[in-house]
């Protein structure tokens, strides 16, 4: 039975895509790609949009079958388990990263002293609740929060627009294209957010021009994020490496906001809310993966286990975002290439097979 409308699915994909991209990503990419960071972002978005397109096609062609059923059909039970384990591990790191980002955000911007457990318990409770209640609850919740987030981001960006010069970063490609490619490779983890969309196969009510609508909104968001990063780099120039979370820093030090005093609270709320949303989607996917792997009726225990694993990992990493960013640049982004390739392959298999079946049916 479908749980999500096309609109809700689009929102879920947008929340996933935007997740960390207005926070720690712009700074990390700038560290590796320098002034060409903007091109790195555009390049990586092409890969992300391709994955969104393929997943949409799979969803469209398999309206009543979920991911696990499709995997079992095409890759045998053993293959299905292996793929699910890979996806589970990848999404677990995504969830862990969002958790680290959120905690660091609170610690840096909002609290003088913030105990991890005080953060983790309420956070896991709410995110766990949304994930446990399922795709329908998440979809509807995101519909309500969407306008708040959109308005928040637009106000924040608009407040800095008058300080954009469009020339501060020129000339581009002084050192060739290698910095851009290096940045692209090392930041790919941020662009694997569309992979969890696989877990929504068979749960979306597909309407007319489904893929077109999803792709159009994804491209729109990609352009928006790219434009934001461009403005951010242009306003901050060579001071970008000293920033931590793009949107919040952007809002905090904008002269316009300083005049009004503390309008940056809006961006703070927006940042936190969208991270809550993406965290709940990741946890939902972990719950679905766990549920299918262990053959449970409810996703409660897989979600609980995922929370415990994430909490232990975060504690081992001491909630240190810098360590996490180091792992992203040196290991996780390379792993993302593999997971992306895997997603593309399975999406093509699911799409191609269905098309063949449809042709047979017509004959």
């Amino acid at each position, binding site marked *: 039975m479908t749980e999500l409308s096309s609109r809700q699915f689009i929102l879920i994909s947008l929340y996933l895509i935007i997740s960390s991209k207005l926070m720690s990503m712009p700074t990390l990419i700038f560290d590796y790609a320098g002034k060409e960071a903007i091109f790195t972002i555009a390049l990586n978005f092409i890969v992300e949009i391709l994955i969104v397109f393929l997943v949409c096609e799979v969803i469209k062609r398999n309206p009543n079958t979920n991911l696990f059923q499709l995997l079992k059909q095409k890759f045998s039970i053993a293959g299905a388990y292996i793929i699910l384990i890979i996806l589970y591990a990848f999404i677990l790191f995504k969830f862990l990263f969002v958790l680290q980002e959120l905690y660091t955000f609170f610690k840096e911007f909002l609290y003088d002293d913030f105990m991890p457990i005080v953060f983790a318990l309420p956070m896991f409770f709410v995110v766990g609740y949304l994930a446990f209640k399922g795709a329908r609850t*998440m979809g*509807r919740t995101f519909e309500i929060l969407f306008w708040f987030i959109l308005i928040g981001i637009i106000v924040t960006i608009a407040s800095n627009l008058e300080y954009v010069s469009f020339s501060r970063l020129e000339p581009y490609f002084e050192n060739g294209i290698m910095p851009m490619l290096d940045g692209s490779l090392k930041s790919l983890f941020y662009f694997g957010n569309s992979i969890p969309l696989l877990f929504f196969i068979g749960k979306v009510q597909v309407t007319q021009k489904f893929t077109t609508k999803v792709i159009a909104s994804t491209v729109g968001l990609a352009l928006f994020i790219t434009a934001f990063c461009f403005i951010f780099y242009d306003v901050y120039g060579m001071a970008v490496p000293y920033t931590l979370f793009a949107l919040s820093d952007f809002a905090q030090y904008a002269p316009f906001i300083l005049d009004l005093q503390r309008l940056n609270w809006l961006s703070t709320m927006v940042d936190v809310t969208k991270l809550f949303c993406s965290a709940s989607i990741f946890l939902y996917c972990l719950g679905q993966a766990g549920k299918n792997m262990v053959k449970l009726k409810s996703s409660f225990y897989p979600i609980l286990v995922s929370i415990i694993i994430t909490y232990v990992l975060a504690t081992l990493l001491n909630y240190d975002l810098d360590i996490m960013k180091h792992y992203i640049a040196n290991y996780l982004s390379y792993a993302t290439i593999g997971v992306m390739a895997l997603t593309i392959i399975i999406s093509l298999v699911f799409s191609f097979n269905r098309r063949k079946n449809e042709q047979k049916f017509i004959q």
Partner: protein
Amino acid sequence: MDIQKILQELKQNFNETSDLVTREFSTHSGEKVAIVFIDNIVDQLLLATSVIKPLQNLNSEEKADLADTAMQQIIAFSQVKEAKDITELTENLLSGFCGVIFENSQKILIVQCVKWITRLPSEPPTSAVEKGPREGFVEDIMSNLTLLRKRLKTNNLKIENLKIGKETNTEVRLIYLNDVAEPQVVKKVKEKLQAIDIDGVVDSNYLIDYLQSRKHCIFKQIGSTEKPDVVTAKILEGRVAILVDGSPIALTVPYILLEDLQASSDYYSNAGRATFLRFLRLFAALIAITLPGIYVALLCYHIKAIPIKLLITILNSVQGIPLTPLLEVLFIIFLFEILYEASLRMPRYMGLALSVVGALILGDTAVQAGLISSPAVLIVAITGVMSYTIPEQSNQISFLRLIFTILGGLLGIFGIIVGVVFLIGYLVNLDSYGAPYLAPFAPYIKADQQDALMHKPANQVFYRPKSIPNINKRRQKNDRTKQ
């Protein structure tokens, strides 16, 4: 028929109650007749002039059955019927009927000459309007049905009778438009009502617990109103209304949260103004819920986030206050709730004095004594007033205000965000007879946005809301489709 035997049996059925009145007399031709009724619920003057006196004057020389003659020619009441047995007679006596027993006939007649004490429809104190109908429901179900029938002059209006309560035998009416309401919803409501096995139903609010799907939920899941125009509008949208005898409050299902954001006056005023007022109500409700929590969070954890001029003002006020910001705000909220509760229960003439004492003397003295600060009083007072922009949700808003204050005090702004996300996640899960609680916002229903926060003029609303299950979507002909 043995009159004495029947009367004896009736007295036993009523446990020798003192208000069961029996009167025996003879017709002009000497045939014995007995009248039985319950005192105070029967119009005795009408009974004497339209039943007793004509029967006493009856000079029956024909061989025809006296009961038949009385029913067809003598008794001048619109509702006269024959009781099949003593049980039926007993039930009808309880509903204000009068029993007529004839010695020489096997039939017992029951005559409706009920006279309940009731008040005239007046403007409900809970839903006063600036413009629009001022009639409100009363405690008498028949008067309430009249008010609805007056507005819905259609043969599609279906009224189903139910009796609930073993001891109270309360009359309940299920009202809906046969060609609009979703049959599944009607069936479900009816089944739930029929399954009720309670000793008594004193007010329609008794039924709410049986009708709502989530038993321990603080949020309203059943619509309620005292205004017939509101019930009429809801029935027209495909909802089912429930009227209970003895209660001026009509219940309606399915219910969505948006209903309380809309006021009946929105439909009697300019559409632009109505839209503005709806946004205002929503804004006020959100502020009422979160402002005390945000204030406490800012003072406890994020004092740097407060603009400097405001910070200086607040710090000057809170200096020397013995309570923490959380305890201080909680103390004022409790004080406010106590004053509210006391002013509701106090005799009306004392209520004004109490509010003056509460608002002016207590608040002012507490601030001057340095027990509480004036910004905290101001915030609780503002949010208290704001919570009544949606009066039907004021209880829920008060409760949430308390929760958000505690969250803000314990976790700071993180707590407020956690609370907001959880609250939305919880509310989107609620469902009332197939209508999503936060519809048409979540799930987003584009067609229903014409009368959600935005309010389009009536001549532009062509369809019934999709959020509410119904079987007839069209409200009026769309001019554009005609062209």
